């Protein structure tokens, strides 16, 4: 089933409480997916890059896990420095690390270098995108990773009920559109031509870290945008190319878009005014941030909408 949510403060200067708001929205939709919860939060444009790196799965039972992760942290740092990154800060979280750095080179090369460290996956990379995902409901994940105080401009989130792949961090949403900075996707639905697209995109040189059908949406959109298409054009094209039932939300550094399949089989409720756009699988999630009677509507099938800050 899955619950998806998005919120964008249209005039926000990066000081909005997006971490708190997204946690509330996703917690209200816990019944749609209690397996894992994921956040893609935008901290507002910075001069530096921020990279979230997964070091271990939440399901691993390695007695030597702590020491191994410490080793991974060291190796990631070494490889990043060797690739030319000027590291400013490294933060540790339970199963991940966050690196804030400055870099002039090719981001794909850098991400590849980091992922050559065994059992390591780049969850997100960009000037403002930060992806956090783990098992448990929104309050659990937000508490573990300290998201309550996160301020930024916009965010999307996902409460997952696994249908076609494992319950672990690799298969949790949101997905970063490797190797494109600041692009992330959450998806509610099932894609039926997932294997076709995965083969096509793999041949085109893209990497996949999970068996989840939703990962191809992120990579597909990134591929389209790399050919010079705008986010909106890429999303319109995706309605032709992707088969199945889906409602997905895609975010970039300064915009947030939503697309609904031709059958309109997956729900979405939308609220928009001059200040804020909030959308979610259920209106109760929107009510967590707009606690009053609001005028909302459901986008129609085949509809694509994009909002910018």
């Amino acid at each position: 089933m899955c619950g998806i949510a998005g919120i964008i403060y249209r005039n926000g200067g990066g000081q909005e409480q997006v971490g708190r708001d997204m946690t509330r929205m996703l917690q209200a939709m816990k019944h749609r997916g209690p397996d894992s919860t994921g956040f893609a939060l935008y901290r507002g444009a910075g001069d530096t890059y921020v990279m979230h790196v997964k070091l271990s799965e939440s399901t691993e039972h390695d007695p030597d896990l702590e020491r191994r992760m410490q080793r991974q942290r060291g190796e990631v740092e070494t490889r990043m420095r060797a690739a030319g990154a000027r590291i400013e800060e490294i933060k540790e979280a339970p199963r991940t690390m966050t690196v804030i750095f400055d870099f002039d080179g090719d981001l794909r090369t850098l991400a590849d270098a980091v992922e050559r460290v065994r059992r390591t996956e780049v969850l997100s990379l960009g000037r403002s995108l930060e992806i956090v995902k783990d098992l448990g409901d929104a309050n659990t994940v937000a508490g573990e990773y300290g998201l309550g105080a996160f301020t930024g401009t916009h965010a999307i989130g996902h409460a997952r009920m696994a249908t076609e792949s494992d319950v672990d961090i690799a298969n949790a949403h949101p997905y970063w559109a490797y190797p494109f900075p600041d692009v992330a996707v959450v998806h509610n639905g099932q894609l039926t031509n997932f294997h076709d697209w995965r083969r096509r995109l793999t041949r085109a040189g893209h990497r996949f870290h999970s068996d989840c059908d939703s990962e191809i949406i992120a990579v597909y959109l990134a591929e389209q945008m790399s050919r010079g298409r705008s986010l909106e054009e890429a999303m319109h094209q995706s309605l032709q190319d992707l088969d199945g039932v889906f409602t997905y939300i895609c975010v970039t550094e300064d915009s947030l878009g939503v697309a609904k399949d031709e059958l309109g089989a997956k729900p979405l409720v939308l609220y928009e005014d001059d200040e804020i756009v909030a959308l979610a699988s259920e209106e109760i999630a929107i009510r967590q941030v707009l606690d009053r009677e609001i005028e909302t509507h459901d986008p129609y099938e085949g509809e694509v909408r994009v909002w910018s800050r």
Partner: protein
Amino acid sequence: MSEQPRMDERGLVELDDSIPKQAKIDGSSAVIEARDMTTRKINAELRWLIYEEGVTDVTVRDPSARHSLGVAILARCRIRFEGSLGYFGCGLIDGPEVEITGRVGWSVAENMMSGVVVVESNAGSLAGAALRGGDLVVKGDVGARTGIDQKGGTIIVLGNAASMTGFMMQRGRQIILGDVGHGLGDSMYDGTIYVGGEVASLGIDCVDAEWTDADTELVERKFSIYGLGKPPELRKLVSGKKLYNYDNLEPSERRLVL
């Protein structure tokens, strides 16, 4: 925001169906302040008022878009929701006259047997799914598959409707004043759909039909009941009945019988 349900050790919600009995009762009418109550408590309160206290006029304030409110009420009464409902609102009802001042999510008035549901704003997809009787009036837009599998009753929509409206409809009527999406009346068996706006495309076996005095009478009567003024010019669509193959025999069977 609202009262959080109690969880057991496994993190599952514990059943608490005690009745709050906090509603302000004034003769035959009562007011429920729903904001801080759980869904289960609101429904328990509603049933207590209608079935045990003999209240016939209930106002539910601030339902906060919660799901499954006002379901399976099997008595003549009036219920007014001051706010919006989530999914599956007022499903399986038989008798009530319901007014919702906000919007509703998916599957409002699903399988209603009789009664009236009036929604002042928009409705999600599957409004009036499997409707058996009564009237569902939506003053805003509705989503996809409105009145799917409808078996009776009337659905009136003042705004637009999305795709597959009246899909597999078997009986009853739909009056849609706005535009309608693709696949209108796809595979409908019977029943009538009236459309005021543009139709993006007709579904399989949905065809135009001749307007009769009975149609005028029906539309005018429904419009006057709900104070909707003079009805606009409408297009009438019915089943072409080309998909009726129930009595057709397989070639092997035909040899045996004939």
